[in-house]
Structures are given as structure tokens and as C-alpha cells.
């Protein structure tokens, strides 16, 4: 990696890319790949699908780089592009899902309860657990899943959320409240299946 480029600001690299030095885009991709990829994995739950989505994000961002006005950090703007890409994918996947909560929890109740009982761990989930997490979160509306992921996993504060989601502060607060209420219903489904 070119250490001089690594010290160059995002704004200078963008200007350089826009003036025709396409190769400087590599440094921007290198710099922002971990966060964009992380969001895509969190949202989509599948690393291969997340990699494809993240590539789409950086290709779209390249085409629209001249639209970036610099009123937010580049990372926040990329989150917005990534969020829209993931929402598209999740919405089309959600249309294919038909299984009821009852059937899902009846089949996966033991695994879900194990996940909830585990203390927080830095170790990555084994693949079966990761798959169960993915399928559980897939049952949340994509918008709720997105805002919970941006807040809880990516750690965006409310001001950053307004920019990443292109909405008002009141809208961010209301969406988070509703998302958490819906998120909590997962517990209700799991607990009720235990009592049957």
C-alpha cells in the first residue's frame, strides 16, 4: 500500500479520482471496505452475498462520486448507498418468505433459546448459529433491521443515522422505538413456544 496515499484525506482522494486518476479510488475502497462489508454482512447474514453487495456499493459509489457533496463523512454516504442496496436485496427476499412465526419457532426454538442464553462473546458464531441469526432477523421488516444494525452493530449516533437514512431526527427516534418493539416480539414468540 502506498503510505502517502494512506495519509491523504478522503476529500483529496475524491478530487483526484474525479480529475481522472481512477487508480486513487483503490485507496478509498481499501479504507472503507471493512465498514461497508460489515454492514452488508450484518444485514444480509451471508458473507458471499455481502461481498457481492459490497462490490455493487463501491461500483455505484464510483459512478455517483460527483454527487457526493461532502456535507457528511464519506463513510456515512457509503452507508447510505450500502443500506439501499441491502434493503433492495432484503425486500425481494422477504417477498419469498411465507413461514409463520409459530412454525419457525417450533422448529428452531431450542437453537434460539441457546442463543439467548449465551453470554456475549467476542468469538464468531459457528455457522449454524449464524444461519439461525440470519433467518431470525430476516423475519424483521428490512427497515427495522437496518436501523437496528446501524445503531447497535455499527454504532452510528442519531445525527449520523439521519444522514445515513436521509431522514429527520424525529423519524430516527420513532423508527428506532418501533424497531425495538418489533424486535422484542421475537422474545414473545420464543417464550410462548416454550410454554406450549
Amino acid at each position, binding site marked *: 500500500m502506498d503510505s502517502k496515499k494512506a495519509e491523504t484525506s478522503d476529500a483529496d482522494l475524491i478530487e483526484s479520482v474525479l480529475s481522472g486518476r481512477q487508480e486513487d479510488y483503490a485507496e478509498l475502497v481499501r479504507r472503507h471496505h*471493512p465498514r461497508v462489508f460489515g454492514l452488508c454482512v450484518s444485514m444480509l447474514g451471508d458473507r458471499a452475498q455481502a461481498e457481492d453487495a459490497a462490490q455493487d456499493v*463501491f*461500483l455505484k459509489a*464510483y459512478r455517483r462520486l460527483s454527487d457526493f457533496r461532502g456535507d457528511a463523512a464519506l463513510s456515512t454516504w457509503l452507508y447510505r448507498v450500502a443500506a439501499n442496496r441491502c434493503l433492495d436485496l432484503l425486500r425481494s427476499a422477504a417477498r419469498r418468505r411465507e413461514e409463520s412465526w409459530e412454525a419457525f419457532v417450533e422448529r428452531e426454538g431450542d437453537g434460539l433459546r441457546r442463543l*439467548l442464553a449465551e453470554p456475549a462473546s467476542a468469538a464468531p458464531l459457528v455457522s449454524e448459529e449464524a444461519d439461525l*441469526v440470519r433467518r431470525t432477523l430476516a423475519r424483521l421488516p428490512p427497515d427495522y433491521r437496518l436501523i437496528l444494525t446501524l445503531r447497535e*452493530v455499527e454504532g452510528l449516533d442519531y445525527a449520523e443515522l439521519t444522514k445515513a437514512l436521509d431522514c429527520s431526527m424525529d423519524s430516527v427516534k420513532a423508527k428506532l422505538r418501533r424497531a425495538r418493539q418489533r*424486535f422484542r416480539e421475537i422474545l414473545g414468540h420464543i417464550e410462548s413456544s416454550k410454554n406450549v
Partner: protein
Amino acid sequence: MNHEQSRSELSELRDGELPESRRAALSRHAAECSSCRAELADWERLTRAFLRPVPAPTSVETERFVNSVMARLPQPETERLSLWALLTGTPLLTPALGLASVALVLSFLPLGFRASAATAVAPLFVADGQEIALASAPAARAGVSEAVGVPDESR
């Protein structure tokens, strides 16, 4: 502070986004209200189970990703190798081509016109905004005259 009002602000309390004055009051309420405490505890439990941070990609994975993206970018418009670019990008080429052109033209002229033509075309020798010395320097003019076989009148 009533319960419903407090409950509506629990989400902001969890996120540390409440103003200081509201935070103190809500924290006091939550400490006494089992329903609010349970809601906060459930969110924490669900978040730990289902919203875990993703392991960061390794530097090797990132480099592979960078290469994949760069390979998919649209190719920049190739810079056309125009005569203009060639002329402006090579400082000595312009006068050299000018001299060669004049020599070529003069070689086709009848002998009687050559001497006057060499003088007449001299102002055309302008490169990069500067008139080169051919028109004014006798030595240079003599060099051209010799090259094209024309007697130098200035000698």
C-alpha cells in the same frame, strides 16, 4: 413522570441520546419500574444474541476485494494520441516538423521561387507561442537554405 411517557423515551435512554435533564428523571423512573427495566433488559439480551459485531475482514481479504472492484470499474476514456498532443507534448518536435515541411514544400518549387519562398514562410515557424529564430537569425536561415539547396541572400 408517568409510565407511558417514560416508556416512549426508553429507546433514547438506551442510546445515550436523551438530554441530561431528561436522562436523570427517566433513569430514576426505570430504577423503580419493573416494566421499563424488563424492556431495557430484553433489548440488551436480544442485541447480544442477534446483533453481534461482524469479524473484520483481513488485510488479504480487503486487498482481494479492492482488486475485484478496480477490475470492474469502467475503463477511463483512453487518451487519444492526437497530432496536437504529440506536438504540444514534445518541445523540439514542432520546429523540427516545421523545418521539414518547409524543406518539402521548397523542394517542389521552381528554383526561381525558392529564395523568396524561404523568406515568405519564415513567420510560420512559430512553436509554443514563440517565434523561432529562423526568420531573424542569419545562421539558422543559412542552415535551412543549405539544407534545401537555396543560396542564402543574407550572406
